[in-house]
């Protein structure tokens, strides 16, 4: 089977159902779709085990915060790569901000360990089953997750730096 975005998407929908593989689009040549947190581990395990796909490399994981999407504010992006077929795909999982809980991927990919710690550190995702979920780049005593959009980079109440030309 030739791996094209359509083929793989069809295969995944046949396996997991349309309600679990949704909102597929292709922003930059890499197929992107959304799934639920209940299915994410089974899906990535399926991609790993399937003989035709062999998606066995976790390129990166990135948290994203959309404060305006009510009920699904936080997004976790998993980007995977099939080195055998040079096929990349991107999976997104949305969670509500009050309940940022996801299952851990460390049982499949050892590399997910620090990526998940980074996501926890900066976005507050809690990965159930993670062996050592503590902050990684920030100090342990930090009381917030700094990449969330409600924490501006500069103190917005400062008055000594107002300059309309520079967009501040």
């Amino acid at each position, binding site marked *: 089977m030739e791996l094209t975005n359509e083929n793989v998407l069809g295969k995944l929908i046949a396996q997991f159902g349309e309600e679990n593989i949704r909102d597929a689009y292709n922003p*930059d040549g*890499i197929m*992107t779709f959304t799934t639920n947190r209940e299915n994410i581990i089974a899906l990535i395990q399926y991609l790993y085990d399937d003989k035709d796909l062999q998606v066995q490399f*976790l390129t990166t994981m*990135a948290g994203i915060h959309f404060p305006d999407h009510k009920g699904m504010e936080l997004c976790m*992006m998993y980007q995977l790569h099939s*080195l055998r077929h040079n096929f990349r795909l991107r999976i997104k999982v949305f969670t509500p901000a009050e309940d940022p809980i996801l299952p851990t991927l460390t049982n499949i990919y*050892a*590399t997910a360990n620090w990526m998940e710690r980074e996501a926890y550190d900066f976005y507050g995702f809690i990965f159930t089953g993670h062996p050592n979920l503590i902050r990684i780049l920030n100090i342990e005593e930090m009381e917030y997750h700094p990449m969330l959009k409600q924490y501006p980079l500069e103190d917005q109440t400062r008055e000594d730096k107002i300059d309309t*030309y520079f967009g501040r």
Partner: protein
Amino acid sequence: MATDNKTADTDQLQEFRDNRDLKLQDKKNENLTTLNLGPTHPATHGIFQNILQMDGEVIMDAVPTIGYIHRAFEKIAERRPFYQITPLTDRMNYCSSPINNMGYHMTVEKLLGIEIPKRAQYIRVIMMELARISDHLICNSILGVDSGAFTGFLYVMQEREHIYDIYEEVCGARLTTNMGRIGGMERDLSPKALHLIGEFLKRFPKVWAEFEKMLTRNRIFIDRTVGVGAISAERALNYGFTGPNLRATGVDYDVRVMNPYSSYEDFEFEIPVGEKGDTYDRFLVRNEEVWQSLKIIEQAYKNLPEGSYHADAPHYYLPPKQEVYTSMEALIYHFKIVMGEIDAPKGEVYHSVEGGNGELGFYLISDGGRTPYRLHFRRPCFIYYQAYTEMIKGGQLADAILTLSSLNVIAGELDA
């Protein structure tokens, strides 16, 4: 939400600390020694801390701590116009900053849909390969220093100075280069720059051959490095290794070949691979990659196409200064670009380049504003350094130092 997270945080943190104390307590009963390697140890070449549990000279366990030079680049990038983010990328892998700069530029160009002229692409290839040479050169010569051979380091360091002279001629800076612009290069290669590159191509092969001769078949070096810090291909892939460290295990994954960018498909070169994934293989792979980089530079230098050194993208590429003073449009564009008042289109792109240490990826989401909505750096060092514990366990302390330098962990890239 904040309160919920906070309680989860503190509970988890306390649990972790209790566990850690318990583990340390257990280890103490077995008469193990706790050794603090770093954060500022001269042999770690950067700021990393490793708390080692030692049984005599043998490492039983290690707990790495990173983040000492974390500078929140991903957060800062969310408030900066696109062209102001390039200097941040310099400071990730500062041994090969042009690769970072150009990787970022190519990502933004992909978002904007700008086509880059061949000449600019070839100039980029020359600069990126020079950067790769300077990166590998540091890694391999430092490996020599850590195993007791200082001479080679000073000898090839001189060549790095010559590479930096070329950078200086091309962009004005040496270490943190901020080289190129979104849309191409900021200026064409000057006759002096071409001359310096030609001189480098003539002089460097002899130097590198001599350096190789000093270490490759050196008995002491082989004894210190063969079988040290080995990792299997399967584990390396599971740990997300890329670049020379992955190729040393025998997997021929190279972004330049698998997903060619910037005209890499035009050049003839080979991907060297190792066999056992140990320190010696990593050394050999980097050595050979330097030769391959020289080959690429030679081809690009000889076949440098005529044409423009930047794309025709007036909205994003600064106009020449002379035109800014004389033409109304150029003045407007200049003002808008410098003030960061140009909105990028909406989109989501991932672009990766073969950095000095592996796949350096940029994941960029734009919501149509003047700054990225989200910019995530896939930093190869951060991803493979987590395997370090596994690689040094059961080995000796002196081997751990060699493993660290052969992995080429750059603190700036590790912590971003």
